[in-house]
């Protein structure tokens, strides 16, 4: 079943909101912040695409956010921005479902909870950190904030999280369980994540991200949130339509790419997924936007937002290091894009969109 994208709420290393995303696409470049990581007397400097959540207080009083962690704040901000973009901030949300896709969940609060008992003993385990470290805490905050009593779902499938979650949003709409879905993809970075990635990839984490250097590790950690407000396609779409969502494993059954679509790939500088993209792309041209927001599982939701924006504006933005003109007008009456994301084991998610 087709879905219509009615609003986008996005926040990443490039800033927050659709205008900031458009500006990033137009300039074709976003510099990551430099983060100092101090661990046991050693200082490391690492580029990270960090997401600031300052804008959240426009929607929710600061006081109400006191015990809410960064992960949930990002989630709430994405949801608020998407509703605002769709002009639905004041609407009744009793038929609004919430679907959250995340690769890692709330990392900082998970480690805060471990700190509480490792530092002070098991009898001092923090109930607040524990209840906020549960994966679906962010979705619960969204439901509570917006009085959304319809279904709420959080899922985590690493790189496949976004395509898998879209499948659920699609089914809820098709089965008439909801009239709209607040669909969010969110991941956060933290010191421990930086530590383990440094161990895995060493200098490969220094960037810049070169998505199509498929045999080279060039990933840069990112974080952020990308929300879409989805409805059934019986309504006009403010941005674009999601026509099809397909998940599978290319290693088990070969993926055949549709020929009539322009491809946006989730190649983000991780060389372990490079061979899969190389196998299916062959001579096909494709674009990738990870250099604008970094490498993290939920970034597939950012690719989706980019595709939706480009379909609405009928412009194909191309990043400067991909050796092609910066912007191409999408002329066709019926333009189609597809977002393709591979996981390291050949598992893939393919999301097809049209205007």
């Amino acid at each position, binding site marked *: 079943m087709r879905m219509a994208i009615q609003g986008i709420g996005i926040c990443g290393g490039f800033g927050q909101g659709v205008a900031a995303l458009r500006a990033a696409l137009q300039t074709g470049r976003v510099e990551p912040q430099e983060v100092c990581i101090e661990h046991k007397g050693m200082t490391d400097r690492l580029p990270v695409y960090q997401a600031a959540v300052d804008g959240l207080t426009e929607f929710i009083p600061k006081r109400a956010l006191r015990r809410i962690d960064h992960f949930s704040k990002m989630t709430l901000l994405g949801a608020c921005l998407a509703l605002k973009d769709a002009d639905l901030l004041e609407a009744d949300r009793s038929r609004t479902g919430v679907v959250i896709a995340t690769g890692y969940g709330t990392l900082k609060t998970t480690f805060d909870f471990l700190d509480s008992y490792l530092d002070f003993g098991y009898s001092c385990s923090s109930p607040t950190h*524990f209840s906020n470290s549960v994966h*679906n805490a962010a979705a619960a905050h969204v439901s509570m904030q917006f009085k959304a*009593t319809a279904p709420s*779902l959080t899922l985590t*499938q690493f790189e*496949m999280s976004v395509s898998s979650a879209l499948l659920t949003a699609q089914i809820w709409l098709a089965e008439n369980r909801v009239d709209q879905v607040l669909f969010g993809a969110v991941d956060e970075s933290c010191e421990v994540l930086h530590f383990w990635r440094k161990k895995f990839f060493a200098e490969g984490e220094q960037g810049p991200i070169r998505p199509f250097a498929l045999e080279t590790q060039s990933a840069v950690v990112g974080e952020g949130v990308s929300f879409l407000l989805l409805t059934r396609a019986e309504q006009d779409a403010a941005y674009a339509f999601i026509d099809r969502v397909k998940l*599978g494993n290319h290693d088990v059954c070969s993926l055949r790419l549709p020929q009539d679509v322009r491809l946006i790939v989730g190649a983000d500088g991780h060389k372990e997924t490079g061979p899969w993209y190389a196998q299916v792309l062959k001579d096909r041209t494709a674009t990738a936007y990870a250099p604008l927001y970094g490498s993290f599982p939920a970034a597939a939701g950012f690719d989706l937002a980019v595709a939706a924006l480009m379909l609405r504006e009928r412009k194909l933005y191309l990043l400067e290091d991909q050796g092609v003109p910066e912007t191409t007008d999408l002329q066709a009456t019926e333009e189609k894009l597809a977002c393709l994301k591979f996981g390291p084991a050949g598992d893939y998610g393919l999301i097809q969109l049209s205007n």
Partner: protein
Amino acid sequence: MSRLAPIAITGLGCLSGAGVNLAESMQTLFSNQRNPQPSRRFTTGHPHCYPVLELPAEFTLPLDNQEKVYARSCQLALVAAREALTDAGWDERSLRGKRVGVCIGTTIGCALNCDDFYRAYKEDDNPDIGIIKRYLYSNPAAVIAQQFRLDGPTQTIANACSSGTDAIGIGSSWLRAGACDIVIAGGADELARVTYSGFSSLMITDPEPCKPFDLKRKGLNLGEGAGMLVLEHEEVRQEKKVRGYVLGYGTACDAYHLTAPRPDGAGLKQALAEAFATAGVSAKQISFTNAHGTGTPDNDRVESRVLNEILPGVPFVSTKGYTGHTLGAAGGIEAVFTLACLQRKEIPANIGFSEADPELPATPVQENTRIEGDIALSESLAFGGNNAALILARGDA
């Protein structure tokens, strides 16, 4: 919502503190036995030692060397999935060429709760990065898909304690939508120091064997395990006998509190209404309910009130006294038990219940009880205010 097509269930598998397969679990349930003990898998410095329900000490998970690399939640999921696939008459070879989805609920199985790694990281004691690798390789749905070489959608649901129930409901929808031919759906969760510490910090853990719906209930006992169903599209199933059907699924959010259920049970009632509507059955057709029944004061109060209002007089049981609360696995295990009880036409006694709470208008069955009818309800409540319900029907196998 309108009625949806029933989905055939062709295979069942489960393991928990109640037994290492379905047959053994049913024997435990109907002999009204349980064996909560201090954990053998981890130690903590808690002033109280809360009992848990683990797999028997003498039982070794039947796994090959590759499978032993995964986190324990995945190992439990694999064992239950293999039992369910065998029950349904499938093996890796016969599944080839089919579109097979995997939809699994979990909590610990997807969380980076690696406290051994983190302790070493904090102490700069050369943390074992292999622990992180194991986490990254151990997404339960992805592991099942990889081990059985499956091509189809995968989804690991992290909806806290309703995850397993949600996974079965969503997996059923995949088949109706034509996203795949077969779905392996259920839940899996291991016991961990993190959840043990977390639940005890919330003061909802009973220092004695848990007592769901009892006046003196103090909380839950944690458990570990997995429960899996094989769901099949009618075109694939053809003449094969079925264990049962998923008739309906409902889900709704309280939008009330992060950890406490909404006192008026509005979210649970909404989930039940949706489940009945999608099943096309009425409350009068329900022969019994497998309740969430954690043994926590709040959960059991809300659940008892809602069951009394929506399903007056319908017998209900919590099987968590036998399995402990297996969190993301609970919905999977309890759906398997519900189907097996429908087949047996009998439900076990709600172990731990002996004294009625005047605040609870409905009380569970106190002895093994014969049931009439072919349709039952299995429900789950969860942190985050999630409520999920499955309407299941007896099959012919």
